[in-house]
């Protein structure tokens, strides 16, 4: 027998009915944009402009305008690539892994987290593509025959695995997101007044009627896609970690990289989800849907994954000492006490020490504090990638090749510019599509056991 739960807190507060859900969540789509949306969107466009200028300068002059050199051949570009790919991971984790674990609290946040995945992967893909230098022959990375200018691609190379992994991840995430959106687009189709809106939402709702037969198959397709996306998300960051781990560079050549990178990706991704949703719930009046309970659950995951990452940092150090390999030992001593000590200790403070504050209930339930901490997590995770890449490369086996590296103005512009891409896409998404999954939320309005 079905009855209301007396054990669990309600996932949606405010005693909402199904029509309240439609009204609340469709409000930004059906009404004119608010002032806060306009300000946010304009700011994003400015950053997008910064990206455009930096990219044009890079393309026009060549990647010599970046400060990368013979020793540090991967600098801010690959740091930013790993940073953005990592951020993308939380979306799939929330929509796929938490679906398999039947975690119903994911329903309020999965839509925006999946959108975040797609936008973050777009930002990530920019960097390896433009790092190629001659981007117009970028298609050589695809398995094309000799006539296109190269031999067949090398299937032993993790860089090629990346091409397949990132493109598959993007395509499958987009598909998963779109399938999840269809019932909600149909709801908007039946609510929107304008002719163009009716046409557009009608086109993308694909004639959805909410038939019981379709719902049954829809739930099965979602479940199978979740089952596929779960190993996919693990494979993507595992492959990203093998870009480093399969090389012979001290500090990179370690077997701990795949699980350590995956945990770091989930950690940073939840950081970004928290940044976005703490603001969105306030500005868009979604406090009844993204409740303190949701923030509590997210911060617990941040704390756990932060601790896993912290243990990985310490394990790396221990193994470097235990291996007896002097190059490995030097690489780690150089990380912590060399010229980039500030980056290393920023990483340690932000990723290992700071999230421990979430053991306190107050910290897990105070939105403004979670917002600050989410920024700290993202700063820390950017530094993690910078530390891994730059401190391992800047001191080669030959001391004559030792150099220092810092990002040029163009590299900084490109990085800040990707926030422009990310937030422009996110603001457009928040204006034209439901940020919260209405159909799933309607199914949990009654707190069923």
């Amino acid at each position, binding site marked *: 027998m079905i009855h209301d739960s007396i054990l669990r807190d309600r996932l949606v507060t405010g005693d909402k009915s199904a029509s309240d859900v439609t009204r609340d969540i469709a409000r930004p789509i059906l009404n004119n944009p608010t002032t806060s949306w306009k300000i946010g969107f304009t700011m994003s466009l400015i950053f997008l402009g910064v990206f455009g200028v930096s990219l044009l300068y890079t393309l026009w002059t060549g990647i010599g305008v970046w400060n990368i050199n013979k020793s540090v051949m991967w600098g801010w570009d690959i740091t930013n690539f790993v940073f953005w790919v990592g951020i993308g991971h939380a979306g799939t984790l929330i929509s796929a892994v938490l679906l398999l674990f039947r975690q119903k609290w994911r329903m309020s946040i999965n839509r925006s987290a999946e959108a975040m995945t797609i936008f973050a992967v777009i930002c990530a893909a920019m960097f390896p593509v433009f790092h190629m230098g001659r981007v117009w022959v970028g298609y050589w990375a695809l398995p094309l025959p000799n006539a296109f200018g190269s031999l067949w691609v090398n299937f032993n190379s993790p860089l090629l695995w990346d091409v397949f992994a990132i493109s598959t991840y993007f*395509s499958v995430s987009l598909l998963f997101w779109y399938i999840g959106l269809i019932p909600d687009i149909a709801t908007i189709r039946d609510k929107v007044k304008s002719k163009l809106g009716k046409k557009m939402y009608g086109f993308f709702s*694909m004639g959805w009627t*909410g*038939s019981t*037969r379709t*719902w049954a198959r829809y739930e*099965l397709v979602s479940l*199978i896609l979740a089952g596929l996306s779960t190993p996919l998300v693990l494979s993507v960051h595992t492959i990203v970690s093998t870009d480093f781990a399969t090389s012979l560079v001290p500090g990179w050549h370690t077997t701990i990289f795949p699980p350590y990178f995956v945990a770091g990706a989930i950690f940073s991704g939840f950081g970004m989800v928290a940044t976005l949703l703490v603001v969105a719930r306030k500005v868009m009046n979604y406090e009844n849907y993204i409740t303190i309970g949701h923030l509590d659950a997210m911060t617990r995951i941040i704390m756990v994954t932060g601790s896993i990452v912290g243990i990985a940092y310490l394990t790396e150090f221990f193994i470097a000492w235990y291996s007896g390999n002097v190059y490995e030992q030097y690489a780690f001593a150089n990380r912590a006490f060399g010229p980039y000590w500030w980056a290393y200790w920023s990483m340690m403070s932000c990723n290992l020490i700071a999230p421990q504050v979430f053991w306190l209930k107050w910290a897990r339930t105070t939105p403004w504090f979670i917002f600050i901490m989410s920024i700290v997590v993202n700063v820390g995770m950017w530094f993690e990638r910078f530390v891994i890449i730059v401190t391992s490369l800047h001191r080669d086996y030959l001391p004559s090749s030792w150099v220092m590296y810092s990002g040029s103005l163009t590299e900084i512009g490109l990085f800040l510019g990707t926030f422009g891409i990310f937030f422009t896409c996110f603001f457009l998404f928040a204006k034209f599509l439901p940020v919260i999954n209405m159909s799933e939320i309607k199914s949990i309005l009654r707190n069923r056991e």
Partner: protein
Amino acid sequence: MGILDKKLSLRHRNKMLIGVWEDEDQLVAAASELVHAGVHIHDIYTPYPVHGLDRIIGARRSKLARIAFFCAIIGFTLMTTMIWYMSVHDWPMNIGNKPVRFTPSWAPVMFEGTVLCTAFGMSFFFFWRNRLVHGIKNETLDIRQTDDRLIVAIETVPGMDEKSILNMMKNGGAIEMREFENGVQTVI
């Protein structure tokens, strides 16, 4: 059996009796009662998934999982053949003196290709089977069926006791009842 599920279309249907519900528990109980009384429910339209309704109306178990497995085998075969053709057959390259034949380093690309093929193959099948096509004419019976109302559609057959069905719907908690014939709805 064609791939498209023809039951999903409302075109060329006999007269239908439409019941509108507000409460999902009442709807599940009423639908169950109607089916037990021998009434054939054509379909139930809901704004969110209501578990158990598919079994009540006698919808068959979906074959999507089998289709997904089939797509996975196709994807795996395609990727393995592609890598073998490029790396072994057409132009084997000696890279760091590593073996060229079936190495574990093929696994990531084989895996990604398999996932891609499975996800898209299965989803396209899902769209096709469920009449989900871009730009298709929308066949909603009630504009609120994507918002907050649950709609039961019963196709009439000659000799059907419509009055007793309408009574059962009313007693089961239907808040509105209509007739639907040739695209026109009449409130009862």
